[in-house]
């Protein structure tokens, strides 16, 4: 019944709207109609569908704007429960699984260069992120961003030659926002490790993976994120090898300039190459952990302008 009423009221509203459109010419004055004719070009610009460039496991399609600098600290604590968790280790807070410290810089509004370093494997990564397509009102229903990453392990003895220390990662992020703040993202990717990670005989060097992420709006500033990844690696899915699919849940809070995400994941690693290659911790064994992402945006555009204005003021 309620639904019927809502539906009916919608229909009524649209009929009234249409009617208004029809006879608005009669009611409005000359000035009105002239102004209306001048203002029907309501720009159907691109939409900002994400608040942050990082979700829980995945990155988002968002690129940071030109001359902006986004400083990132992504932290994963130790196991919450299980053998290596529990109260003795303050539910993992005494332990560090992985810390990623890095930054993103906007070369243009659509092209970012990112650098960072992870605790796991001492992995240093260099990324290029390019927003090919933005979701737009009355335009494209999807946002598409390409991500390319080269990663290097400068330390460690398992490598015979320098090239063995490299890994590569390529991803296509495709996102669609159903309504403001509610976004689904699917991201197929390719991982290439020159040395198998983890270093076990029979492990795949190349494999394909798929990430799926749902962000749901809780309020204007807050959102809930579910982030899942699956590696299509036959080695990882051989019984007894002990791999699990990474699954994360996050609470995202945006405070203007800062984005803070509190999360729970079974994956120990932050970097895509690391968690897609070697997630061997599972929820079932209590091997999930608390983590957080802090992003702090610095804008170099504003500062320059302020200085200019001040200079002009002095003159």
């Amino acid at each position, binding site marked *: 019944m309620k639904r019927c009423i809502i539906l009916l009221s919608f229909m009524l509203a649209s009929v009234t709207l249409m009617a208004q459109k029809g006879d608005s010419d009669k009611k409005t004055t*000359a000035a009105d109609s002239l102004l209306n004719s001048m*203002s029907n070009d309501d*720009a159907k610009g691109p939409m*900002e569908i994400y608040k942050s460039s990082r979700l829980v496991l995945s990155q988002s399609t968002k690129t940071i704007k030109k001359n902006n600098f986004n400083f990132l600290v992504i932290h994963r604590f130790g196991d919450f429960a299980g053998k290596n968790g529990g109260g003795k280790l303050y539910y993992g807070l005494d332990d560090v699984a992985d810390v990623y410290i890095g930054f993103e810089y906007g070369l243009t*509004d659509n092209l970012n260069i990112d650098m960072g370093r992870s605790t796991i494997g001492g992995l240093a990564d260099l990324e290029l992120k390019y927003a090919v397509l933005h979701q737009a009102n009355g335009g494209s229903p999807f946002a598409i961003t390409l991500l390319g990453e080269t990663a290097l392990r400068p330390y460690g003895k398992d490598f015979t030659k320098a090239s063995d220390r490299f890994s590569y990662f390529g991803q296509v992020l495709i996102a669609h926002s159903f309504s*403001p703040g509610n976004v689904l993202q699917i991201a197929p990717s390719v991982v290439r490790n020159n040395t198998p990670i983890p270093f076990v005989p029979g492990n795949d060097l190349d494999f394909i993976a798929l990430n799926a992420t749902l962000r749901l709006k809780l309020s204007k500033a807050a959102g809930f994120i579910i982030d899942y990844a699956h590696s299509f690696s036959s080695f990882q899915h051989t019984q007894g090898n002990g791999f699990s699919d990474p699954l994360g849940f996050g609470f995202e809070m945006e405070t203007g*300039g800062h984005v803070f995400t509190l999360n729970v994941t079974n994956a120990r690693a932050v970097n895509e190459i690391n968690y897609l290659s070697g997630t061997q911790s599972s929820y079932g064994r209590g091997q999930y952990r608390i983590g957080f992402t802090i992003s702090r945006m610095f804008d170099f555009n504003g500062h320059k302008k302020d200085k200019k204005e001040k200079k002009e003021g002095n003159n």
Partner: protein
Amino acid sequence: MLLAWMITFQAGQDLYVCKNASITLFSTAPIEDIKAETSTGASVFNAATGELNFTVLISSFKFPKSLMQEHFNSDYMESDKYPRATFKGKIAEKIDVTKDGSYPVNVTGDLTVHNVTMKRTISGTMTVKGGAISMKSEFMVKCADHHIDIPKIVFHNIAESIKMTVSANYVLYK
């Protein structure tokens, strides 16, 4: 539509238009001052009736920092839902467009921002010079009046009242 065109033709003599009105907003808050501006406001002035109308696309406001602009559109103004701010008013004084001079004016009408309409009387100055008309005005807009929520935890602190300045140069509509 046809009717509208006819009216427009009839009243064409008295209609003045401006397609590049400059509109600026200032927010003065303890942490920082924020200024944004657009020069794509549209306005129509009917010299016969004293009608003065304005419309501006919210997303056309340019901020010095891109993140501010993003927050202004998505968090404060919800410009995807309410793309425009408008003003439909009438000047109380009679302006003689054939006589050069500067006229102080009071315009009373509906100011619609963030889909909330307020009855306002806004004062300004109208200048006539050789058949060209220009208009300048400065007024305050209270965020609360237009149901613009200011999130409690924000980095970019904004003022509760925003100072707006409007300046438009009109040409006779032909």
